[in-house]
């Protein structure tokens, strides 16, 4: 019991630290294209993550999505009802025009690229939870297979 008295507050403090470090305020975004297996979003204001933007768009009834939580944040499994078929090795890939900002590389063409409306979007270095919204930048979600 005396050991528990020491351990439980310690675990509680650690949990509090983990939970207090969540994502920031929601960013503003608009949908440029929404087709089967493709979603293109443009940030209309700075701030928040792509996940926050997806949440805001979902709350506004403009899209639906689902996913699971993983080490790198939200892992998207379906957008607008289109599920990535794991039996066909499909997944939702993420591309963005957001390159390097404040010394942080948010995408890298070396991992792949996607052309949208004449703009080259590079494969994102982070998932939807880690990618920040920067005004004017484009974010492409598309189903791909490996």
């Amino acid at each position, binding site marked *: 019991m005396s050991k528990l008295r020491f*351990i439980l507050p*310690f*675990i509680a403090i*650690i949990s509090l*630290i*983990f939970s207090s*470090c969540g*994502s*920031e305020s929601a960013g503003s975004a608009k949908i440029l294209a929404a087709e089967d297996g493709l979603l293109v979003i443009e940030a209309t204001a700075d701030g928040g*993550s792509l996940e926050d933007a997806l949440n805001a768009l979902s709350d506004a009834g403009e899209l639906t999505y689902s996913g*699971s*939580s*993983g*080490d*790198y*944040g939200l892992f998207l499994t379906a957008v607008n009802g289109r599920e990535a078929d794991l039996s066909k090795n499909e997944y939702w890939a993420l591309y963005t025009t957001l390159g390097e900002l*404040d*010394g*942080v*590389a*948010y995408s*890298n063409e*070396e*991992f792949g690229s996607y052309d949208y409306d004449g703009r080259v979007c590079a494969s994102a*270095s*982070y998932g939807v*939870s*880690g*990618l*920040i919204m920067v005004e004017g930048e484009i974010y492409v979600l598309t189903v791909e297979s490996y």
Partner: protein
Amino acid sequence: MKPRELAICAVAASLLVAVQLALSFVAGVELVTAVFAAFCYVFGARSGVLTGLVFSLLRCLIFGFVPNVVLLYILYYSLFALVFGAVGRVCPPAWLCEAALVPLAAASAFFAVRGIPVSAVYKTRVSVMLWVLFGIFTSLAIFALFARERGELVAVTSLAALMTVLFTLADDLITPLMLGYSREAAAGYFYSGFIVMLPQTVFAAVSVFVLFYPLKRAMTAVKNGKR
């Protein structure tokens, strides 16, 4: 190797896969380190290496066969088994624990002050984690100085934290090499690895510190054939 020893290794490998799968839905939380450390400590390096190999291959049935990940797991868990198997035979002296803990604490503080180029979304989280790690390593170093009768616990906890860091560093080396990343891409991969490494290291240190003795007792009972 006797049939009983083989059977125990098979059960242990299955248990590790189950533990990894059960907690794979909770970000940053894993108990494989605590369970496998206690197993290698009690059953020794030979059983540990065999179990680590089986675990590394068996998990592919669930998590998929990704060559760089399989290589990483095989190398890492073999080294892990050798290290904890050796600690089970000869507990390292306190000064050796200090030699591992002080650089880890210093590195945590250095990166916390300097900052790591990760996504703005994760900056606060990474900074807090680094200070938490600094606190854990410093506390363990002080604990190692004043609680010498618990040197074994300090040693396995410190090594668990160190090995968790090594896992990510090994991944930072193996994956870019096998997938042919450029220097810039490898650097990006290295920094994004901190997001997962830090909570895993914190959790590995805390879980091993809390669970090592109960797991060691349970596994010693299995080894001695007690119910």
